[in-house]
């Protein structure tokens, strides 16, 4: 995808010091360069940018978990409430941010496509990597802080937990890519999509266990892969947590595969259009 996509054309790069590289090497170095650039751009936006980039989501998580603890009482489903919220909210925010940031990626990186080595897909991958690193750091700091305060932060089944997190990330990547392609075609949809992410808070069972959601609506609510992901993640972290009936990893996996198929397919179909400077 990343080499100059011209059949029969040998890979080219500068003579003397620089050796010809394989497509994979080019893509690797492009993604590495983009990750550094992306991180620099995120951190460089404001004074003390690196600190703010970490503090912002930290405050978000802290306020939600502490606020709802005050409203709802200290324990729920056998666990301390702040732990319960943090465990589900942190991955949810990661997925949401990933999807939304991918959506903006094309517009923000358009000028880079004048360097022929850089393709839109590389900018997507770089964004996901940066977003994941920031989220992981924030989460690690918060877990450490919670544990220090006295909460039990151990993960019940760590391997499954990591696998589910990765699956969710893949899902968010597919979703973000599809949204990026859709909003590239119809830019005015961006506002609508941003707004659509807000109710997801409530229908994905972020702040309460999914079993508290109305039972009559369950078949409908279970269409939402975020609900499955959050429930699965909680069940894997908290030893006594019972996910609501109908939650299945298989559903998320198949949803993700279909989503990725469509995202990559439409990317392939639209790739000439994406790097063109003439539009959007």
């Amino acid at each position, binding site marked *: 995808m990343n080499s*100059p*996509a*011209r*059949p*029969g*054309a*040998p890979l*080219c*790069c*500068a*003579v*003397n*010091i*620089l*050796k010809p*590289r394989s497509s994979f*090497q*080019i893509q690797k*170095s*492009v993604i*590495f*360069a983009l990750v*550094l*650039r992306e991180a*620099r*751009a995120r951190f*460089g*936006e404001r004074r003390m940018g690196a600190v703010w980039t970490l503090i912002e989501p930290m405050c978000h998580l802290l306020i939600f978990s502490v606020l709802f603890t005050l409203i709802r009482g200290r324990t729920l489903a056998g666990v301390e409430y702040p732990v319960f919220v943090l465990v589900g909210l942190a991955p949810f925010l990661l997925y949401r941010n990933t999807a939304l940031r991918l959506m903006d990626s094309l517009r923000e990186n358009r*000028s*880079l*496509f*004048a*360097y*022929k*080595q*850089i393709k839109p897909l590389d900018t997507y991958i770089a964004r996901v990597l940066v977003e994941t690193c920031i989220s992981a750091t924030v989460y690690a700091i918060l877990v450490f802080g919670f544990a220090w305060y006295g909460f039990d932060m151990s993960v019940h089944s760590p391997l499954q937990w990591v696998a589910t997190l990765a699956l969710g990330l893949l899902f968010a990547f597919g979703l973000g890519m599809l949204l990026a392609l859709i909003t590239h075609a119809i830019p005015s949809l961006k506002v609508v999509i941003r707004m659509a992410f807000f109710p997801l808070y409530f229908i994905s069972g972020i702040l309460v266990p999914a079993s508290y959601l109305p039972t009559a609506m369950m078949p409908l609510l279970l269409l939402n892969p975020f609900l499955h992901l959050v429930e699965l993640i909680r069940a894997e972290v908290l030893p006594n947590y019972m996910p609501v009936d109908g939650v299945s990893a298989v559903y998320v996996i198949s949803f993700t595969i279909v989503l990725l198929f469509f995202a990559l397919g439409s990317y392939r179909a639209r*790739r*000439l*259009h994406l*790097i*063109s400077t*003439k*539009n959007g």
Partner: protein
Amino acid sequence: MFELKNVTKSYLTPKGRRYVFRNLSLSIPPEKNIGLIGRNGAGKSTLMRLLGGADIPDSGAIITDQSISWPVGLSGGFQGSMTGRDNIKFVCRVYGAEGEAMREKVRYVQAFAEIGDWIDEPIKTYSSGMRSRLAFGLSMAFNFDYYLIDEVMSVGDAQFKRKCSEVFREKLQHSKVVLVSHSMPEIKKLCDIILLVRDGGIQIYEDVAEGIRAYNT
């Protein structure tokens, strides 16, 4: 050399699809400085982007075994909140210059663009002159078989302009250019072959004077 085989290129605009080139086939002989001329909007820049690989034809292929630069003096790819040094490093990484090669390029650009310790300031604090000097220096730091030049040959004040053309003359000993320009004296001075872009087609003139005459009539 470049070989275009059945190249079709169109852009999708809100009013529908607009074709720049349709089923274009031609081969450009090797070891020539190429001048692209034509009226505004004829497709010169599109052709340049296609030759450089920054844009891909809808169908057909463009075949070359040469290394081709990004448009000389391109400053649109700079990230404003990153320092000059980081921006240079970014391009180095993309083009595979790492370690000592990267340090050497940074030194070269710093010296060439005469920006001194401004190199560690964010690009957005640069004057437009500094920015374009940096961009020009960055293009000159890499060696390519072909340099793509879209109108801008030199930037900055008179003294810097002189330096630009000196470096360029040196580069032209080993490299070639693809020059898009409306200035016929410049074309005459640099190019060995003319591609006249007109009405979605391209005529090749091996004789520069003849090409310019064809353009003017």
